[in-house]
């Protein structure tokens, strides 16, 4: 101890100055480390926490459901049942995107509302002003792209024909992707009953996924919004079975 302290005070002089520079240097290094830790927190830890929150919601939802027969059911194309709107923050059902299987948590809760607090639980949030699942019009959902569960991270990999499935307490709703576009956050008409045509009476049952995107930063940017459209192709009663695509998905019950 004595040896070290005498060394800092001795030869090249300017004891106070060199000590001050030493402390300054250590503070700057600390600042750099803290910035690095922030990135770790943002990209990794938020996802760990959000996935826990989402898992809790999913488990609660699934435990409230009657056992679904583990068989593939016929897709019905008549008018599906439409659920009543639930209160803000309550669970509507589960969103299952078979194309995301093995990549992200592809059985995520759908909750009513799109506040940051809700979306930070790694859920898909239903825009409350849009239609209900199965209803004629637009069932529009928001989710994070990166961080907080990376909910819609691989939205860019969805191609026309890919299925987007919604599971509720009574019904499976099957939609198929029709296309996508990248828009500015101000272009809210993409979630209109007929996308981009506000005021027009809808005739089709649509589902729209909205998430962050940037033409330059891709999944890491949030200057734009990635909009993926899907169209209703059919439904099935939970009592009859489930869509073939989700039979092998361990996240589905």
């Amino acid at each position: 101890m004595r040896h070290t302290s005498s060394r800092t005070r001795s030869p090249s002089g300017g004891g106070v100055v060199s000590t001050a520079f030493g402390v300054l240097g250590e503070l700057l290094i600390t600042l750099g480390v803290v910035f690095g830790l922030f990135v770790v927190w943002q990209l990794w830890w938020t996802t760990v926490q959000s996935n826990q929150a989402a898992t809790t919601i999913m488990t609660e939802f699934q435990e409230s459901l009657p056992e679904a027969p583990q068989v593939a059911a016929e897709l019905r194309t008549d008018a599906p049942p439409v659920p009543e709107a639930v209160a803000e923050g309550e669970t509507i059902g589960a969103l299952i995107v078979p194309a995301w299987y093995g990549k992200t948590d592809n059985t995520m809760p759908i909750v009513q509302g799109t506040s940051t607090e809700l979306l930070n639980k790694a859920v898909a949030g239903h825009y409350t002003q849009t239609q209900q699942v199965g209803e004629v019009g637009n069932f529009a959902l928001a989710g994070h792209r990166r961080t907080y569960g990376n909910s819609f991270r691989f939205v860019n990999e969805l191609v026309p024909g890919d299925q987007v499935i919604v599971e509720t307490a009574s019904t499976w709703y099957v939609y198929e992707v029709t296309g996508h576009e990248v828009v500015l956050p101000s272009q809210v008409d993409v979630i209109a009953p007929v996308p981009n045509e506000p005021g027009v009476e809808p005739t089709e049952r649509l589902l729209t996924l909205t998430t962050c995107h940037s033409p330059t930063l891709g999944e890491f940017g949030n200057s734009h919004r990635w909009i993926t459209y899907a169209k209703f192709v059919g439904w099935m009663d939970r009592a009859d079975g489930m869509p073939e695509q989700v039979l092998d998905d361990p996240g589905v019950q």
Partner: protein
Amino acid sequence: MYGWIFRHLPGNRFWQVVQSLVLVAAVVAVLFTWVFPWVAETFNVNGDPNFD
């Protein structure tokens, strides 16, 4: 600064290292639990996937 703190930790070298690790872990925990969420919220680092 860090050297000064390290030298003023009690015990032998082994215990000094253990205590240093505990201190670092405590600082990281405080950052992850309170500081970073506050920074992200205050400066809107993460943005919002919603439409504004």
